[in-house]
């Protein structure tokens, strides 16, 4: 069985620079599977999600590789067709709920737009669906929320709205870009449970971008560890927590605070390990240059 999303040898670079920001990234996800992308800040986790959805910043572009979504090669499609296809197939749960909702529009059209404009639903049907979705994300008074402006809602509420909006059109792929990072700890847990619940109910394939290995262990089946835009380890979650293969992964895991003994376990990643993995990334660059 071929995977629902396959990313093959994907590289991206900043215009006018020799440096790649994504270095020959490859992975695949089956329907109903959740892949965690972990790494430190700037490792390129979010960049991968953006590359798949076609929302890379204008200064960065894909220079090689292919993205196969539901058997279609995205790079070979016309931009307008690609956008329509992604709109009907995939969805994004963004990182920052404060900027991800348009401040000058009410919630209702922000959920129903995609249904009405892209999928051709009637306004009344879309409204019913939106109310249903807000119920699904456990919002108590969906009618009131639909008529509200984003600034009238709390961060947790907004993230719920964004999750509802992401699942509105029954997407087959959801990219969750650090969906809990901007929320406080008590809300984080509820939101994670909610995402997991919806993902299971709709058996959605999901890319879960995070820097929190604790979250990965709860939500994902497999994970990829990134450093400097390169995947240093692909592994299943149980295998990874039993014993990561790569030295950097081991250090990352060791650096995760454990609730049982927070002081003793809070180790920084060893500099020697960082140097080693950085050298590895540079070596792969050299190889890539000679190969290409």
């Amino acid at each position: 069985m071929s995977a629902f999303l396959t990313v093959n040898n994907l590289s991206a670079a900043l215009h006018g620079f020799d440096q790649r920001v994504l270095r020959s990234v490859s992975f695949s996800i089956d329907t109903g599977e959740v892949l965690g992308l972990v790494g430190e800040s700037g490792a390129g986790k979010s960049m991968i999600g953006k590359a798949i959805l076609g929302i890379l910043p204008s200064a960065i572009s894909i220079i090689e590789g292919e993205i196969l979504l539901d058997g279609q090669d995205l790079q070979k499609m016309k931009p307008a067709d690609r956008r329509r296809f992604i709109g009907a197939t995939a969805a994004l749960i963004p990182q920052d709920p404060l900027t991800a909702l348009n401040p000058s529009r009410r919630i209702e059209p922000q959920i129903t737009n995609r249904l009405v404009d892209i999928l051709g639903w009637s306004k009344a049907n879309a409204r019913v669906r939106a109310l249903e979705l807000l119920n699904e994300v456990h919002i108590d008074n969906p009618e009131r929320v639909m008529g509200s402006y984003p600034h009238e809602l709390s961060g947790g509420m907004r993230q719920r709205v964004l999750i509802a909006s992401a699942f509105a059109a029954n997407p087959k792929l959801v990219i969750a870009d650090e969906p809990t990072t901007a929320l406080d700890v008590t809300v984080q847990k509820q939101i994670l449970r909610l995402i997991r619940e919806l993902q299971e109910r709709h058996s959605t394939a999901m890319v879960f971008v995070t820097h929190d290995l604790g979250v990965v262990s709860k939500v994902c089946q497999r994970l990829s560890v990134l450093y400097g835009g390169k995947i240093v380890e692909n592994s299943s979650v149980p295998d990874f927590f039993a014993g990561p293969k790569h030295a950097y992964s081991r250090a990352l895991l060791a650096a995760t605070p454990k609730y049982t003994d927070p002081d003793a376990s809070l180790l920084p990643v060893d500099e020697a390990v960082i140097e080693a993995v950085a050298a590895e990334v540079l070596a792969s660059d050299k190889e890539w240059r000679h190969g290409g």
Partner: protein
Amino acid sequence: MLDGRGSIKRRLGARLWLSGTWLGIMALLALFAPLISPHDPLAQDLFAGRLPPFWASGSDPAYLLGTDSLGRDVLSRLIHGARIAFSVALIAGLATAIVGSMLGLLAGYLRGWVDVVISRLVDIWMAFPPVLFAILLIAVLGTGLTSIIIAIIVIDWTRFCRVVRAEAMNQSAMDYVSSAIVAGRPRRDILWREILPNVLPTIVALSTLEMGIAVIVEAILSFVNLSISTDAPTWGGMIAEGRTSIYQAWWVLAFPLGVLFLTVLSFSQFGEGLKDRFDPVLR
């Protein structure tokens, strides 16, 4: 007040109300000028020249704000001047806003070569001294209300273009725009329904400011006799005439100057007030 937010709100309210009231009165005067003005603004009465305003000795109660050196009623000329000033302000202000904002939105949202072309055009445009540019344009187009309006649009669209472009670029980088792209919504739709509403408060504030500027530009052009026909009652023209007899009849200069000042100030304050009112979140 204990509540900081409340006290800020009250201040904004006063600003909006004061400026709005003044502009409302002026707009009504402009609209009903022929019904309200006590005299024909063009009628000369050489025997009643340079009559002082009603409170000074030697005034004539028929001429509340006095008369100029040709015996024309200052009040009537002010009221009819409001008509010209407001026509220019509204038409030129709005047209400039539409032209400039449109180009700014396109440049800021589409980027690429569209942005390069529009931005370079703005750079070149802004290198011309505006008043000389206006005089040059009037010289080519001929005097008249339409020429003034065209001149204002041609000169001032860059003001909107620059600000709206920057704001559109800002908004385009927001996550909600990314979300709309991922949702597969067409680009046109994203520009009109996602970005424009968030740029609108800026456009509104700038538009009212622009209306004030249009009033000033019209006054400047009237002052140098490049506006409408020489005896037409424009505030700038009245100021120019009043200047020649400032020691004998200060009121001919002072009243139009005061009205001009208050109107321009009101336009800018009204815009600021509206912007704060429109903003869904007080940023």
